[in-house]
């Protein structure tokens, strides 16, 4: 892997470059096609469609809200925000995971290391107790946590960052317990938020959050070269001309933006940031300028897949995305672990 990078950096001949770009475009195209397929499936399939399957024209009319069957209208209308939330959350979290694995040079890192989920959870509980809206509280909490982790571990490197994140996690869960145990209503609202779900945000919320995700993605794409160089080690990257401090700030800002917006949209969902970059890296290679978009597409597809499976496995109840991701993610993680050691 390192050998490949060095060769590409030092000696790039035109046919090789074109071939690489072609391969990457083909793979990205395939991922995009796969994603579109999953989008369609997500809109089509659900507890309802197994009962009676509407025709295609009926379905298109329902998409526009003009079908005769009002139940079909509302069912399809409820699937649209789910699908949009799934795409945004899946793409954002997968990109964040890819970036943090590149930043910490540890293929087993998860964007939750920055403490984003826990900070968001703490602020959400405070918001529930005080009576403020939840989504802005989640974003504020996520940013506060990430800033705390960054500033406290600036001198310590990655190990310090992990430890501060762990401290924050345990401390915030204690504070959350302290507040949640006092009133059953708080516990009720919080336990629903805690598992993460695709249905709790409307399309308007998604449209408000989407710019944050896009900005985060653009920041990460700007840092793509820095991420590539960081893989060689910090001193090597510095001698290749990367400004370590700016890159770190940029990458962490991008990750925080993505994680904060996804947590605000769907609640804390883990495992995507962990497993999607692994699977994508095996297909696309390690250059981040293609890895990040590929992770976005693959992450969106994976969440849609988990959501669809969660819907059809046990109708009419459904397995929430967080749980089905964990059930799928753990075997994949263990398999990756076996391959690595």
């Amino acid at each position, binding site marked *: 892997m390192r050998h490949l990078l060095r060769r590409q950096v030092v000696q790039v001949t035109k046919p090789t470059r074109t071939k690489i770009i072609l391969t990457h475009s083909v793979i990205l195209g395939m991922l995009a096609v796969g994603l579109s397929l999953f989008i369609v499936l997500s809109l089509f399939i659900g507890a309802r469609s197994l009962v009676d399957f509407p025709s295609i024209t009926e379905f298109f009319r329902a998409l526009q809200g003009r079908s005769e069957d009002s139940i079909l209208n509302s069912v399809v209308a409820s699937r649209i925000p789910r699908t949009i939330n799934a795409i945004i959350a899946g793409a954002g979290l997968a990109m964040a995971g890819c970036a943090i694995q590149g930043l910490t040079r540890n293929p*087993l890192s998860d964007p939750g290391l920055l403490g984003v989920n826990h900070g968001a959870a703490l602020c959400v509980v405070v918001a529930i107790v005080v009576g403020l809206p939840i989504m802005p509280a989640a974003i504020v909490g996520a940013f506060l946590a990430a800033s705390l982790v960054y500033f*406290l*571990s600036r*001198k*310590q490197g990655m190990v*310090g960052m992990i*430890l*501060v994140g*762990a*401290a*924050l996690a*345990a*401390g915030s*869960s*204690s*504070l959350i*317990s*302290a507040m*949640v*145990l006092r009133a*059953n209503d708080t*516990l*009720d609202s919080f*336990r*629903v938020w*805690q*598992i993460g779900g695709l249905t709790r945000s409307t399309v308007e919320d998604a449209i408000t959050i989407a710019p944050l995700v896009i900005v985060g993605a653009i920041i990460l794409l700007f840092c793509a070269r820095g991420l590539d160089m960081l893989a060689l080690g910090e001193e090597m990257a510095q001698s290749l001309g990367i400004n370590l401090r700016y890159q770190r700030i940029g990458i962490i800002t991008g990750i925080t933006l993505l994680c904060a917006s996804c947590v605000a949209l769907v609640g804390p969902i*883990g*495992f995507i940031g962990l497993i999607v970059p692994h699977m994508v890296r095996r297909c696309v290679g390690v250059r981040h300028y293609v890895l990040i978009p590929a992770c976005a597409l693959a992450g969106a597809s994976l969440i849609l897949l988990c959501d669809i499976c969660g819907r059809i496995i046990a109708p009419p109840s459904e397995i*929430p995305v*967080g*749980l089905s*991701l*964990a*059930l799928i*993610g*753990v075997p994949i*993680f*263990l398999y990756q*672990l076996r391959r690595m*050691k």
Partner: protein
Amino acid sequence: MKKLIPLSLAIVILSFAYLLLGRFHVSFMDFIRIMSNAEITESYMRTARFVIQEERLPRLCIGLLAGLSLGLGGTCFQLMLRNPLASPDVVGISAAASVTVVLSMAVWGLTGLWLSGAAFIGALCATMLIIAIAGFRSMSHFVLTGVAFSALFVALTHYLLTRINIYKAASASIWLTGSLGQATWLRVIILLCLIIAPIICLCILARPVHHLALGDELAQGLGIRVKHVRWAVIILGVVLTSSAVAATGPISFVGFMAGPVTRLMLGGRDSFMGSALVGAFLVIAADFIGREIGLPVGVITGIIGMPILLYFVVKRP
């Protein structure tokens, strides 16, 4: 050893404070009278006897024993993983116990001792599962598999918490934060029986463990079976932590803080006895504070533990 004497004295003083002070004051003379089973006539003495013998004394005993086990378990993990900031929680013991407890509460409606038994069995089964999947290959493999399973168990716990009704969820949440509130003499005796055997084994293994601290090759040169000792100590740590978690619920940070604080006090040396004492002290001190405020002990240890851990991180050169 000598440096541990002030700590032992501190624990004794703290225990007396715990028993005598609080919302219901009991004077020392009354305490002596109660403990010596003297004739009780006054009504306030009867209340005092109830408070001391049925409420505070069992809480104190279970707190000491749980803190002891958690401190020992934490040090086992820190010594064997060669990481001064490791903790048995990382491997998913608390998470496995939590998911077993919520499942038992929801599905079988277990309470009390049956619940604790289920938690203990759940934690041990999860550890066996992790060892079965990870194999005895290497410590870091074991830890990472434990991390994955821990995340899975946590996800399952959160999911189950949403499926049960709110009252069961509230009582499950109380258990999940770790509290000494359900202390009874039966629990104290059971916990004592559970942890005596691992403690004796740890005493036997204390010397090989200290040799292991010199490094694997040196220890092997001294004739110690490195792999066997390491895995034995880890499993003892798991049993100790599972017993404590089953008795009181997962009390956060104790297993993790006991080691570094001991090392700070002893000037860089690790000590099983020291971390046991520090663990016991932490739990009783936290419960003393929590009892007055009305919060379970796990919440207090988490709130105190976070700045302490942050201090350790920032101070690391």
